[in-house]
C-alpha cells in the first residue's frame, strides 16, 4: 500500500502551515488524516465504488503540488469570461495566484477570495461551516482533501445581497512536482446568507499531456431563500485524475442548481450531494459528460429530501466514444418527514462505439408516503434512421451525427442559465466530438 506516503506528505504540509491556523482546524485536519488512513482508498468491493477502480490513483506516489504562480500559466485556462463575470480567482497547483486574479468591488459585507487568507485573518470565521457539510467520516477522498487542502476559494455573500455577475474560480494544474506526478486538494467554501443570490463557476484545467491528481471538495451552505447557480467545468488534461465532491446544504425555500460538466481527465469521479434541509427547496442537478479513448467518468449524485414540499429535477446526459466507460448512480432519499416531495430524475447515455460502455443505476429510498418520484434511464446509440434522413437532405455523415448529438444534449445545455458557459462548453464539445467522430468513422 502507498498510504504511508500520504502520512509523510501530511507531516510535511503540517510543518509548512501558517502558525496562525486555528487550533480547531488543525484538529479537524489531524482527524481527517486519521480517518483517511483508517479508510484507505475505496475498492470495487465498496458499493459506492462498485464499477470504479481507483487503483491508478492509489498505486501512484503523488507529491503535493508546489506553488507556482508564473503568469504564463493563465494560458492553460480554456475558459475566460471577461466582462461577463465579476471576480475571477485563479489558483495554480492549489495555491491562490493574486497576480492572475481580479476581484472587483463587491456588495458590502461580501467576501470573495483565498480561503487560506481568510482563515489566517479570521481564526473562528469558518468554523461553523468548514467540514460541516462535507462529512469525511465515510468518504476517503473528502477526508484526504480536508487533511491536505492548502487553499481554495472562500465566497460569502451576506443576507439580501445579490451578485449581478457570476464569480469564476479557476484551478490550474501544471503537472509534476519534484519529478513525481503532483496532487492538489482544492477546497471551496460558499456561504450564502438568507435571500442572497450568486452564480459561481469552478473550472479545472491542466497542462496538456501531463498526469496529476486533483481532489476537490466544495461545500455550500444556503440560507433561507438563498439562490445558488453553481457550475463545475472539468476540463483537466486527458492524463489527469480528478475526484470532486460538491456538497450542498439548502435551507428553507432556497433554490440550488448544480451543473456538472466533465470533458477531460483519464479517470474522473464526481460526487454531488444535496441535502434539502428546509421546506420548499427547489434543487436542480444537471450533468453532462463526454469521454473518448479509454477515459473513465463516474457521476454519483445524492439528493436528500429531508423536509416536506421540496422539488428536485435531475438530468444527466453523457456521450461515450471509443473504449470509454461511464458510470451513473443517482440516489434520491425521501425521509419520513418529507411529504409532498416531487422528485424527477432522468439519465441518458449515448454510445458512439460498440466498445463504449456505461453502468447506470437509479437508487430511490423512499420513507414517506405522499410523494411523487419518477426516474428514467436510457442507453442507446444514434438513431440510424435519423442519420439517413439528414444525409438524404445533403448533410454529411459527420455533420448529421453532430447535429443529432447536439440535439441529444440540448435540454441539459438549455438548463444552464449562464450563456457564456453554454457557449464555452459547446465550443469544447464541438472540438472533442469532431475528434471522436473522426476516430469512429
Amino acid at each position: 500500500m502507498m498510504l504511508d506516503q500520504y502520512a509523510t506528505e501530511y507531516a510535511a504540509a503540517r510543518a509548512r502551515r501558517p502558525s496562525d491556523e486555528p487550533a480547531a482546524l488543525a484538529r479537524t485536519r489531524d482527524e481527517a488524516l486519521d480517518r483517511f488512513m483508517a479508510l484507505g482508498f475505496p475498492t470495487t468491493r465498496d458499493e459506492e465504488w462498485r464499477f470504479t477502480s481507483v487503483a491508478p490513483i492509489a498505486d501512484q506516489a503523488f507529491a503535493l503540488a508546489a506553488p507556482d504562480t508564473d503568469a504564463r500559466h493563465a494560458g492553460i485556462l480554456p475558459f475566460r469570461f471577461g466582462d461577463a463575470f465579476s471576480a475571477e480567482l485563479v489558483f495554480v497547483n492549489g495555491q491562490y495566484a493574486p497576480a492572475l486574479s481580479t476581484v472587483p468591488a463587491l456588495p458590502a459585507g461580501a467576501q470573495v477570495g483565498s480561503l487560506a487568507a481568510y482563515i489566517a485573518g479570521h481564526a473562528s470565521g469558518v468554523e461553523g461551516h468548514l467540514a460541516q457539510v462535507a462529512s469525511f467520516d465515510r468518504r476517503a477522498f473528502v477526508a484526504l482533501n480536508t487533511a491536505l487542502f492548502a487553499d481554495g476559494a472562500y465566497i460569502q455573500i451576506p443576507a439580501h445581497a445579490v451578485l449581478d455577475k457570476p464569480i469564476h474560480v479557476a484551478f490550474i494544474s501544471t503537472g509534476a512536482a519534484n519529478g513525481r506526478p503532483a496532487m492538489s486538494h482544492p477546497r471551496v467554501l460558499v456561504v450564502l446568507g438568507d435571500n442572497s443570490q450568486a452564480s459561481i463557476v469552478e473550472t479545472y484545467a491542466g497542462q496538456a499531456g501531463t498526469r496529476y491528481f486533483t481532489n476537490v471538495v466544495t461545500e455550500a451552505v444556503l440560507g433561507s431563500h438563498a439562490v445558488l447557480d453553481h457550475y463545475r467545468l472539468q476540463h483537466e488534461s486527458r492524463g489527469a485524475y480528478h475526484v470532486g465532491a460538491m456538497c450542498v446544504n439548502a435551507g428553507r425555500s432556497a433554490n440550488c442548481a448544480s451543473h456538472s460538466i466533465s470533458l477531460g481527465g483519464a479517470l474522473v469521479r464526481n460526487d454531488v450531494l444535496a441535502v434539502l434541509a428546509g421546506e420548499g427547496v427547489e434543487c436542480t442537478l444537471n450533468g453532462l459528460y463526454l469521454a473518448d479513448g479509454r477515459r473513465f467518468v463516474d457521476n454519483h449524485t445524492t439528493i436528500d429530501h429531508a423536509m416536506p414540499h421540496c422539488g428536485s429535477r435531475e438530468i444527466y446526459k453523457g456521450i461515450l466514444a471509443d473504449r470509454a466507460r461511464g458510470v451513473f448512480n443517482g440516489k434520491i432519499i425521501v425521509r419520513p418527514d418529507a411529504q409532498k416531495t416531487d422528485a424527477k430524475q432522468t439519465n441518458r447515455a449515448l454510445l458512439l462505439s460498440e466498445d463504449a460502455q456505461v453502468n447506470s443505476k437509479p437508487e430511490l429510498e423512499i420513507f414517506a408516503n405522499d410523494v411523487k418520484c419518477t426516474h428514467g434511464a436510457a442507453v442507446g446509440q444514434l438513431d440510424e434512421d435519423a442519420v439517413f434522413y439528414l444525409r438524404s437532405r445533403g448533410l454529411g455523415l459527420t455533420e448529421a451525427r453532430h447535429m443529432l448529438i447536439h440535439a441529444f444534449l440540448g435540454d441539459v445545455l438549455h438548463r444552464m442559465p449562464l450563456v457564456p458557459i453554454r457557449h464555452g462548453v459547446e465550443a469544447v464539445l464541438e472540438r472533442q466530438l469532431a475528434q471522436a467522430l473522426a476516430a469512429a468513422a
Partner: protein
Amino acid sequence: MLTVRNLHARVAGRDILKGIDLSVRFGEVHAIMGPNGSGKSTLARVLAGHPEYEVTAGEVTFEGEDLLAMDPETRARVGVFMAFQYPVEIPGVNNAYFLKTALNTVRKHRGKEELDAMEFLTLVRERMKQLDMDEAFLNRPVNEGFSGGEKKRNEIFQMAVLEPRLAVLDETDSGLDIDALRVVADGVNAMRSADRAFLVVTHYQRLLTYIVPDVVHVLSEGRIVRSGDKSLALELEDKGYGWLEEPVGKP
C-alpha cells in the same frame, strides 16, 4: 436523366428488386404503381441510397454519373430528393436550422452562394405560403409530434426549398385527406418544369388525378411488368392488381 438497368437489390437477406429497367427524361413525371410488397418503396430507397438496401446487380446513372457509387448526401447534393414514406422524427433538431443547413450544403455543392438568415427566411416563407403551412412549423423539432399529414406536407416543403432535379415521392399520398392531398399535389405541380423530373410511387390511382403522369409503370415481384400512359392507372383502378398474379411479362 435517370437510367436504371437490370437493377437487383435486397434488404435483410431478401431479394426484392429482380431486374428493374427504367428511363426517365427531364420534364417527365413517372408513376410507379404496384401491390404491396412489389418493391416500389425499395426502388425509392435504393435511389436515395438507404444503407440497409444492398444493390446486388445492375446500374443506375443520373445525368451520366454513376448514382450507386455516391453516398446519400452526395445524391442529395447533385439533386436527388426522396420524400419519405415515413418521415423520421428528430427531437431537438429545429426544422429551420436543419433546413437552412441542408439548403446551404446543397447550394454550396452546386456552386451557388449560401443564403444568410434573412434570405433564407424570405425563401421559406414564400414556399410555406404556397403549401398553406403555418410559420410556427419552422421552430418545431423536425417532424416531432407532427400529424401524418403535416409530416407529408413537410416533405414537400423541403423539396420545394431544396429544388431537386429528380424528386422521388414514396407514397406521399398515404394517410392524406383530400384537402391535404390537393395541397401536396399543387406543390408538386408548381414545381414541374423542363429541367426536373418526378418519380411518384403510389399504391392508388387517386394521387394521379391531381399529379398527372406522363408514364405509368406497374411493378410486380420486383420487376416492371407493364408500362403505359396515364390510362394504365385508370385500368388498374378498375381491375385491381389481381390480374398481375397471372404470369404476365415473366420470361
